[in-house]
């Protein structure tokens, strides 16, 4: 692999992580990204509860939600569950 990566002698045993999971940007796995229609969205926050990756955050200071595309894997559960049909999955 690339020379930046460590050899077997340099890493801890058993797959111990030397980086926090927040440093692995799994959002680049996605093919489709959720896009919200601000008019239709009722801010019911069901999508926040359903997101399996915790990638939709409630921002109380804005009184609104925000998708974290660094960690959204594009599964589409939010779009499927949205009672207002306010989320559309769009090809990246």
């Amino acid at each position, binding site marked *: *692999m690339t020379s930046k*990566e*460590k*050899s*077997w002698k340099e*890493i*801890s*045993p*058993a*797959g*111990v*992580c*030397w*980086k*926090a*999971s927040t440093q692995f940007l799994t959002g680049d796995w996605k093919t489709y990204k959720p896009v919200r229609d601000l008019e239709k969205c009722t801010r019911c926050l069901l999508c926040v509860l359903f997101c399996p990756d915790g990638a939709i955050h409630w921002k109380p200071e804005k009184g609104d939600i925000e998708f974290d595309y660094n960690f959204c894997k594009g599964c589409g559960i939010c779009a499927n569950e949205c009672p207002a049909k306010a989320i559309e999955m769009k090809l990246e």
Partner: protein
Amino acid sequence: MKSVVKQEVLALNGDEAVAYAAKQSDVDVVAAYPITPQTIIVERFSEYVANGEVETEFVCTESEHSALTACLAASVTGARAFTASASAGLALMHEMLFVTSGCRAPVVMAIANRALSAPLNIHGDHSDTMTERDSGWIQIYVENTQEAYDSVIQAFRIAENTDVLLPVIVGLDGFTLSHTLENVHVLADDVVKKFVGTRKFVNVVNHEGKTVPFKLDPDNPTSMGPIALPNYYFEFKRQQEEAMKNALKIIPQVNREYAEISGRSYGDGLVDAYYVEDAEIAIVCLGSTAGTVKAVVDELRADGVKAGLLRLRTFRPLPVEKIVNTLKNAKAVAVMDRSMSFGGEGGPVFHEVRHALYDTDKHPHIVNYIYGLGGRDTSPMQIRKIYEDLQKILRTKHVETRVQYLGLRE
């Protein structure tokens, strides 16, 4: 040896000897599920728990898969964990064997070696542990009940050595050892407790960049074995191979240290060579069969025949160098396999001993005898027949049949 301590002699079968050794080894967690011929180990241990003789947390699980999972979970928190199984029970653990070795959890597991179904058979052979050859566990095969006791105590020291950190299987032949009463010299509780000591931990760097002990601890959080993609998985597997290489040094060291307190040792810990240094004809085998072979070697030596035995005590790691050195004078070698590798042209021990000898200058003739499957008895007469076959090969310099079935009706 002046530091050898006074020992009590108890009449124990192999399973009881294993349970007694585990009791003395200050085990924190035992999680197990009963299966013949291992059942007595767990039964005895549960009695120790019920009687308050141990402080062990005893977990009755719903399956062997869960039993090993519970032991792994306990082990990665820094606890000392022990379990026992056999045959189909070990097969059900298969997935977790890899997770345990991959997490470098030093779990010790006794296996009362037993055949696998079908047809259903509860008796002894090595099919169960041979199937787990590549699961990353150290494998020790014992010859008698005394060695079963001694090896379980040693296994904790080997597994937990910070240069090793690998789980260990101690295999004892089902019924032949597990259910046979023998006199066993046992050490005092405090002597064993001192010998096994407490677990030590290497340091690792966690996700916050902090150096923490290698265990799951809420005060020093870290994660083990979560995911390694193509860019790192390979490196972790290479580390496990290095640990096996280190075990080749640690196992003899533990064997020596144990001899200092008990007066007992098993060869160098890796191989038990019996009149094999100058032997022209030699048998290589594992487990209790070695006792029968030794009796035959005594008879042949009395008649002036240069016969010998090499018992592999550890099959993983395979002591390649020891095999080469101890068989250096052998001209014809018979390897005994108590399991089959269907379609593989001989059994697993045969394959590996032949592989070990491939780079030597003097290639001895090497033949294979599959024997004792499903608990079939192997007699001294049959062993004598193997040595006679080897003598014939010496005379004729010709191998008629490379792989034979000992005690099979043709």
